């Protein structure tokens, strides 16, 4: 396959970036999208040019490092996968592919396609944890948890924090991420002691990081590589309003 790439190049956080065209020839349809970029980068290095910077780590869809807004959609045209799981057979010969970084106030560009997603870490630090007593380890399964509840909590916990929800949202809202992190603990007995403090702290941090607010378009759940549902957002809202308006202890 021969492809034309239009890639966002930006020297550093302060520099003004622009889309630069590259030719990617002899691309195998069996390559992953990131392998294709690796090959383009090798060519650039041989020519003495600065390679295209992009985030990646595990390359098997579980770490949440890879990003890329490909032809107008986070993680490219397929549903339920990350960019590292996207293969070139999803494109056609002679296609033009526009590759941009995640665009959000909360995710400033570091260089080229690489963005600083530490805002998500700060939201987690604000409340995405549970307290555990020291001492002897309790028996496993000593607290009964209904299967449906455990499954729902696990579904929320599959969030890899890649930021595709923010990238897809027309408002750059982080509510799918935050609600998944709130839900995975709020659903389980172990998460109850900090339940209402947690949701308030995480929402406050989310707002402080400059993310937008949800208009329920559903773009986030459609683009989430882990297919996390926006029912999490409703649950987060419910807990937040309960904490703010109904409960006085928290």
């Amino acid at each position, binding site marked *: 396959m021969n492809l034309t790439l*239009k890639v*966002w190049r930006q020297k550093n956080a302060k520099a003004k970036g622009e*889309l630069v065209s590259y030719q990617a020839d002899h691309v195998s349809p069996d390559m992953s999208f990131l392998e294709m970029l690796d090959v383009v980068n090798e060519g650039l290095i041989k020519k003495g040019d600065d390679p295209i910077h992009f985030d990646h780590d595990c390359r098997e869809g579980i770490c949440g490092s890879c990003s890329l*807004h490909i*032809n*107008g*959609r986070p993680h490219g*045209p397929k549903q339920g996968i990350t960019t590292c799981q996207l293969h070139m057979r999803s494109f056609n010969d002679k296609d033009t592919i*526009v590759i*941009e970084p995640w*665009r*959000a*106030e*909360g995710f400033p560009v570091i260089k080229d396609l690489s963005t600083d997603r530490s805002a998500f870490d700060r939201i987690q630090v604000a409340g995405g944890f549970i307290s555990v007593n020291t001492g002897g380890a309790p028996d496993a399964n000593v607290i009964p948890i209904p299967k449906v509840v455990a499954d729902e909590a696990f579904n929320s916990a599959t969030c890899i924090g890649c930021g595709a929800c923010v990238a*897809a949202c*027309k*408002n*750059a*809202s982080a*509510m799918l991420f935050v609600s998944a992190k709130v839900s995975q603990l709020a659903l389980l007995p172990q998460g109850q002691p900090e339940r209402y403090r947690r949701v308030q702290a995480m*929402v*406050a941090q*989310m*707002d402080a990081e*400059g*993310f*937008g*607010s*949800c*208009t*329920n*378009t*559903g*773009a986030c759940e*459609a*683009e989430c590589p882990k297919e996390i549902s*926006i*029912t999490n*957002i*409703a*649950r*987060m*809202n*419910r*807990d*937040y*309003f309960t904490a*703010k*308006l109904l409960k006085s202890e928290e």
Partner: protein
Amino acid sequence: MSNFAKTFSSSLGKKLVMALTGIFLCTFLIVHLVGNLQLFKDDAGQAFNAYAYFMTHFGPIKIVSYLLYASIIIHAVYALLLTAANKKARPVAYAVQKGGQNSPWSSRNMGILGTILLIFIVVHMGDFWWKYHNAELPYAKYEISLENPNDLPKVSELPYDANRLVHSDIVDVQAGKQIVVSKDLYKIVNNAFQTWWYVLLYVVAMAALSFHLIHGFKSAFQTIGWNNSNLVPIIRFLGVWVFGVLIPLAFAAMPLYFFFFK
């Protein structure tokens, strides 16, 4: 800032305000529609004029109407605040963004739809609400035979008179008739809907209402957090078929009815 004020200045708090005012405005639509069905009555506007008088002079309804005006303003102001914050959340736009592949059109264009509706509300209230309250409207006099009350009333027009009651209803037993005199809002409505572009404005506004509510109604419940799996199908059904189809169609039928049949 108090904790309460902080709650409503957070992103979620602002969304709650949008949801609650939105649902209130939806319930108003039902009342407004049911009342306006009087327009279809073939009685030269007697029932409609009586209804207009009731809606503007009955205490509890007046209180609710002020809540309604406040809700429209708050809904619009909070929409502006949220939109401004959302624009700030993405300072650099994408060169290519294919929202159409991951979300419905109406959900991405609530601001445009809402702006159309706000313009419509201003025009609509200016033409009917403002004129009914402040303009020198003529009066309609309905004479209804006491012997045959189901016969069509004899209608005549009385000129504007500042001393005349907005609505009066007397029974003249000697003459054998009931005489109802009302400020003639019906005539204003009828006249307005004889102009094609005015009718078109109403139909376009109702199309905007349809798309606004197809997304807005279910969205409000999602924001509040009412997403119980038994409840969601009912909310979706109401949002699409009642608020998205039935109500806008019934409202749009009014100007079309006057334009084509009156």
